[in-house]
């Protein structure tokens, strides 16, 4: 499968996430769109890892070139899991204080 197709798919998913962050006001939906962007990046990393592996495999059949891309995806997932736990705790605390998850209520620092 040409690498361009994977690039276009990942870019489309990333842009949908960006549009979601820009257009929605619910803090949870914005957080989910950030997860969507992280997953688009993960898909692109795996596709590039297999692309480099395909190039290296032509000369050496026992090569492990490209395995770092998949390890980076693993670490991105680890960091995303930690981020989600803290972020959801912050959203719950914000809901307790303002009884809403609307991000437009979070402008108190402005005054």
């Amino acid at each position, binding site marked *: *499968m040409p*690498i361009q197709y994977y690039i276009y798919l990942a*870019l489309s*998913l990333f842009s949908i996430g*960006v549009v979601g962050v820009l257009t929605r006001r619910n803090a949870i939906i914005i957080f989910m769109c950030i997860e969507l962007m992280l997953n688009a990046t993960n898909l692109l990393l795996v596709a590039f890892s297999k692309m480099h592996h395909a190039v290296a495999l032509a000369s050496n059949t026992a090569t492990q070139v490209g395995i770092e891309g998949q390890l980076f995806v*693993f*670490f991105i997932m680890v960091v995303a899991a930690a981020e989600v736990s803290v972020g959801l705790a*912050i959203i719950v605390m914000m809901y307790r204080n303002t009884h809403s998850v609307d991000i437009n209520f979070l402008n108190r620092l402005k005054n």
Partner: protein
Amino acid sequence: MAITHIIFWFLTALALVSALMVLLSKNPVYSVLWLIAVFFAISGHYILLNAQFLAIVNMIVYAGAIMVLFLFVIMLMNLDKETEPQKDIWMKVAGVISGGCLLIQLVRLAKDAPEMVNKTALLKTGSIGLIENLGKVLFSDYVVPFEISSVLFLSAMVGAVVIGKK
């Protein structure tokens, strides 16, 4: 048309449609369910690329753990009965135009990149995505970041408890 191509296009369409539905759903619970569909489609892509470990981890961690956490938080907040406050229409149009410009720019960059001409991503073959090879590299070359990530998890756990307690 080979069967892998059919699966590829089916998973691509599923991912894009589900991602759009995440944005378009009014109810946050439906958004979470569509996002789980996106994660399953991406897991299917991983399986197609023979990255089996990542496919399983994506399903367990993202679709299993993180999305259930989102669902619990939404149900704790009782959000689904009230209608979500909407941004005014000009902000939405501006957001869509900005995202579309970003997409057009990135696609144009990727289309002309000389590194990616005539390159293919290896489907169904290649052993670097198997648990054995990934585990060997993870516990030899990348053991220090792996241990540091455990400290990160501990601090995230403590932080979540401290923030959520009061």
